[in-house]
């Protein structure tokens, strides 16, 4: 008997078919949409997922799959695919100006090299067909009023009286020309802009849209045999430079845009290692990232543990204190960050006001403008956001330490501090070490904190710094990839992300092994 979420028998079967059908429907829609825009890889992945789901739920697949399938699909889509894509992109010259495919770039360069004549000659236009059934244009030059019949063979000047005009004064018919009907025009769609009618001196008339044509010349001619562009006006030859652009063979810096996404492995990685412009900021950011993650764990753990020890003793109102202590954990992090951002405002922030009022400072501190104050601010704010978590796990761990150990130490004459240092702390660290490593890895990638609080700044623009003083690797990768539309570099950002992945991966692996070792302990 079939069973499904409280249903049995035929209703369960119908419900199952309905659910799988909905998935198939959505999947089919997505596959077709992906194919429609030429994303064959995405369509392929979706098809595999769809077949997998159908196999799992409609055929005799192993029972565990029926429970694991949704998780496997989400893991594939949201974890594995982005990782594979990032790894792949780190080997590409993928930046502003090098984003599309080579075929698209060739097509675009040809379009870009179309030029209007010096006078900007344009024609009022009627589209039709000539006696042979080929497309033809009946044109009226907007500048000199000349009326022309343009066919694929060339243009003919029409004498007055040999053509008729419509109510707008635009020529509409002549002998051997049959104007397209509105329905035919609508069906023509974008084909209209691909029509070219030879004019004089290698120029041609091309419709811009219904009713208007323009005189154009093509400067760059593509030769597919040797994969080069030749400029008719200068004679310059542009060949594939191996880095995603056509470059002038005589003048390497003269490149044509757009370029295309080109494999350039391992340039993004070697750039990070050896290019002084990239290496300097990268190493500086890497050092700060490690320092930030380490200090964040150290400060939050220290405060959390201190509070846990304090709350471990029976005091009046302990429950209320405990509730208050986990409040920062209960408030959405981004909200807290924005509030802290306001509190640290140089002119209006309460932090400066308090510091001035109690006489610690005389003039307001520009927290966001100086590197070390900004870093201090980040550590302080992260302490606020992170200590409740450490307090909670430390409290739990303290409960797990047998009290007889401390009692034995007390009998042996150990002081409270000695008992804490020699017994409580080592045992706590053994229990909490994997969680501290996980916290380190989390802070290593704590994008929200940096982005919402300082945006990675301050940055010494005058020194030409490419990374801010509080940028960590993830925010640096973001700034490299996204923030400046005029100079985005997705390939380099992917390479930086890969470094982060390796570092966090090693830490996680170490943590897992450590956990296993503890289990054996």
């Amino acid at each position, binding site marked *: 008997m079939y069973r499904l979420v409280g249903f049995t028998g035929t209703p369960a079967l119908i419900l199952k078919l309905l659910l799988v059908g909905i998935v198939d*429907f959505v999947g089919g829609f997505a596959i077709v949409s992906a194919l429609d825009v030429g994303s064959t890889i995405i369509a392929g992945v979706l098809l595999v997922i769809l077949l997998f789901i159908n196999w799992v739920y409609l055929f005799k697949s192993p029972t565990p799959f029926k429970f694991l399938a949704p998780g496997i699909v989400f893991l594939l889509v949201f974890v594995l695919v982005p990782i594979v894509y990032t790894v792949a992109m780190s080997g590409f010259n993928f930046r502003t100006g090098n984003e*599309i495919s080579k075929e698209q770039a060739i097509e675009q360069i040809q379009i870009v090299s179309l030029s209007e004549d010096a006078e900007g000659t344009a024609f009022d236009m009627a589209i039709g067909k000539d006696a042979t059934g080929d497309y033809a244009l009946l044109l009226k030059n907007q500048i000199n009023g000349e009326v022309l019949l343009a066919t694929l063979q060339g243009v003919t000047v029409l004498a007055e009286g040999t053509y008729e005009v419509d109510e707008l004064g635009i020529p509409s018919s002549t002998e051997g020309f049959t104007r397209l009907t509105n329905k035919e025009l609508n069906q023509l*769609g974008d084909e209209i802009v691909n029509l070219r009618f030879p004019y004089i001196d290698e120029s041609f008339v091309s419709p*811009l849209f219904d009713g208007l044509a323009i005189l154009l010349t093509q400067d760059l001619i593509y030769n597919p045999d040797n994969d080069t562009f030749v400029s008719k006006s200068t004679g310059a030859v542009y060949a594939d430079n191996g880095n995603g652009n056509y470059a002038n063979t005589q003048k390497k810096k003269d490149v044509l*845009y757009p370029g295309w996404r080109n494999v350039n492995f391992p340039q993004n990685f070697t750039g990070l290692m050896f290019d002084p412009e990239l290496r300097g900021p990268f190493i500086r950011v890497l050092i700060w990232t490690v320092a930030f993650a380490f200090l964040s764990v150290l400060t939050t753990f220290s405060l959390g543990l201190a509070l846990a020890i304090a709350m471990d003793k029976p005091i009046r109102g302990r429950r209320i204190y405990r509730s208050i202590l986990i409040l920062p954990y209960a408030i959405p992090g981004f909200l807290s960050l924005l509030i802290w951002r306001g509190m640290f405002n140089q002119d209006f922030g309460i932090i400066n006001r308090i510091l001035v009022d109690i006489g610690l400072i005389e003039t307001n501190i520009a927290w966001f*403008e100086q590197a070390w104050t900004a870093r201090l601010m980040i550590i302080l704010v992260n302490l606020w956001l992170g200590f409740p978590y450490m307090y909670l796990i430390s409290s739990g761990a303290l409960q797990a330490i047998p009290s007889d150990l401390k009692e034995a130490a007390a009998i042996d004459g150990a002081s409270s501090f000695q008992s804490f240092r020699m017994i409580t702390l080592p045992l706590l660290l053994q229990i909490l070490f994997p969680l501290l490593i996980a916290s380190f890895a989390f802070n290593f990638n704590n994008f929200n904190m940096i982005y919402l609080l300082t945006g990675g700044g301050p940055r010494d*623009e005058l020194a030409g710094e490419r990374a801010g003083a509080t940028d960590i690797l993830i925010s640096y990768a973001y700034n490299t990839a996204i923030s400046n539309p005029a100079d985005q570099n997705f390939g380099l950002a992917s390479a930086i992300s890969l470094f982060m992945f390796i570092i966090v991966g090693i830490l996680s692996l170490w943590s897992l092994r450590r956990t296993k070792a503890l289990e054996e302990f």
Partner: protein
Amino acid sequence: MFNAKGRLVAVATAGALILSGYVAAFAPATAANKKIIVWTDEQRGPVMRTLLVGKTPVKGYTIEIKSYSNLDALNAAWNSATAATGPDLIISNAGLAASGGKSGKLAPLTLPSSVKNQFSKSAWAALSFKGKVYGVPLDVDTTAMFWNTKLFGKKSPKTFGAMVDYYTKNKASKGLTAGFCAQEGTWGSHPVFTALGGGAWAYKKNGEGDPTKTVFNSAAFKANITKYLLGTDGKSNGFFKIGGDCINDWKAGKIPFLNTGGWNVDGINASGVKYKIGSVPGVKKGTFGSPWAGYQGAFVTSYAKNHGVAAAANQFAVNFMANATTQAQLSTFGNRPPANLLAAKKVKNPVLAGIATAGSRGVLQLSALLDANAGGSNWYDLTGDVFNKILVEGAAVGATLDAAAAKLLQNFAAGAANL
């Protein structure tokens, strides 16, 4: 589990549903061919919708306006746009021409002389990348000085020094928090820079910009910053405030002078402050600072071709968006002077006319040069850092401006290749 018959039914059902998915996917794709999708920001979106009521700019096509909450959101969406998700036309600032032209995301426009002649050459230059036009100019993004007439009086300040004097004398008695608010950040600070003898690039005798030279470290600029903006401690005298929502203090009557654009006029009027509009005066009587004159443009994307609506999108941009009537109507909504010269002549609104007059002293905001960051950072970030160093940290004016000038020249040299 199913028996053989059950499996057959299941497979048939799944197949039918996949097929229906295919049909469902295909049907809207066909319908979309008759739609021109326009992306814009939260200010122009509603304006465009109003403008299109009862109109059919392209026969047989509907215009779908998608507006984003602000320009940053629009740019973010544009950055991640693909052929599947991207628009057919995008309305954004002129800076898009360089990045969009370089990446191939924008389609170049071919234009008849009848359309070209309706705009200034500088408008077309602002929307070009490597000599190709990528957008139709819509309106001029510029700023003007608004002064609180209750504080300073109705007569305009004749010199920059007069504004500083007013601030110094009335700071304590009137509770002024600053003298001059450049609300639009370093972009909106340009009239102050130029009023004091600074600016981005130098100009040739024929009036053409010369990006091989900069006046950002001119002797006059150095001297005037020291004289008008610094106190005896070598740090800011409190007169000049860049950004940070200082407009709120202006609205509260705590700052007498404000430099901003027409987009803030509604908020200014709502504050009840009585004001007049003019240009930022220079250090000598009869001279004035120059705001940036940037352009907003309507850009046809290369995605329009993927969607099969390239011709229609071109027609919409060239025939409708560039049209003088359209632009005259657009300008009344956003208080931005129209780029179309015929439309500009029709402007009657006194606030808009005041902004247009101040803007007429503006200099062309060439994004290709200003956005370039070969020296490490672009014009806007670099000048912000310079003034932070000078006004807040008390850095030496001469050395700081000289270092900045060297960076700017690096940027300009790199950016000039894209003009």
